[in-house]
């Protein structure tokens, strides 16, 4: 319904949409770029893009939350690439990984899927967790991860692949739905 209102340019739908998703959208942008001002710009761009392209949303491909997360994440990764030519410092990932995996209040509110995924991520070997977070969150390629970790590209690829395989195995069957 929100997306229908969004596509129709409904002002009330816009208010409801922004209020509902702004913490998530801003949080994703902030996690990727690490700068509140830039994250704010990116989050606003994400809402504007979703507003313009609401008609393209396909519920068969995931929830509205997932769709919007993809939008803001792609924008944030693009912005981070422009702003940060140097690879991510692996040490900077530790707080982020901790935030993802160790969040009691989020655990309390989390659904089964996210709980299982957090648990699986926390259980990964540290180098695999860093690799998959660098790739998934910061959009780094295997070569960039290899440079950051001082390992061969093949090793970086293997870590990404191994981590994703384990995380995928921890998830229940894929679901889709509206939000």
């Amino acid at each position, binding site marked *: 319904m929100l997306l229908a209102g969004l596509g129709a340019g409904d*002002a009330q739908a816009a208010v409801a949409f922004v209020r509902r998703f702004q913490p998530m959208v801003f949080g994703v942008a902030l996690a990727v770029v690490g700068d509140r001002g830039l994250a704010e710009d990116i989050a606003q761009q994400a809402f504007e893009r979703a507003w313009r392209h609401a008609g393209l949303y396909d519920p068969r491909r995931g929830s509205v939350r997932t769709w919007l997360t993809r939008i803001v994440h792609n924008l944030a990764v693009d912005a981070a690439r422009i702003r940060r030519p140097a690879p991510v410092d692996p040490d900077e990932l530790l707080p982020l990984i901790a935030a993802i995996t160790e969040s009691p209040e989020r655990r309390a509110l989390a659904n089964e899927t996210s709980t299982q995924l957090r648990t699986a991520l926390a259980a990964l070997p540290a180098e695999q967790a860093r690799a998959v977070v660098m790739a998934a969150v910061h959009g*780094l390629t295997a*070569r960039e991860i290899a440079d950051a970790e001082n390992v061969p590209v093949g090793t970086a690829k293997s870590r*990404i692949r191994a981590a994703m395989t384990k995380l995928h195995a921890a998830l229940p069957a894929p679901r889709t739905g509206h939000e």
Partner: protein
Amino acid sequence: MNELTCQQCQDAAAELALDVLPCHERACALAHLEVCTTCQDTVSALTVTADRLIELLPAAQPPAGFERRVISALVPPAPHPTRWWIPAAATLLALALAAGGWILGRSDYSSNATDAPADVGTPTDERTVMYAPLTTAQHQIGNAYAYPGPPGWIYLAIDGGPASNTVHCDVVRRDGSAVRVGTFPLDHGHGAWGGPAPVDRNALTTARLTDGHGTTLAIAHFGPAPHNRPHPASHFDSRSDSHPDSRSDAHPEHHLDSHPQRPH
């Protein structure tokens, strides 16, 4: 483009799902997916995992004002009225004022017929609406409202006017010049019209209602008479010597200020 085997595609599936595969490798993988449903399923499943991973990122409250800025960008406020709106809005306002004014006029008919022009609104505001009763020699037949510009406008409401089918509205300025600003029909002596007009509070003296022959049917006095017309109250008298446009054969009753209209 190199063709990938299923094993190579499976190896690249995680990076493809995470959208971090370099361009060339990505193109090769996508080409393979075009023809391999097994690898398609693998990549689709890993894409869901990648999406779920991003959704684990902690939410954060954006800075104050973020919501307002975003909503303003999504749904811009209604545009400010442009100039063409102003006469229309003013006409609506005048309609409401006319209704009230006409009721007042009906309640004190004789005195209103000779009322001095008045401002509707704050008297000290140069842009308040000016009001004057629209009168024949004998009685009031309506109300006139003028609003100093820019853009200026004038509005006439006639009730119980002459039987003329079509009437004109001319504004007369202190220098005696008259400008026709509108033409409108009357239906058995009733009608209303409003439109843009050169209204200058210091220059406007009267609004004149004329018929198709140039005969003045009624007048609303907004301000002092033209310089060469010292007695506006005697306007309906025969005054071939006082009005620049007047005719000497003007009938005091039906040809109150009969004169040919200036070309416009």
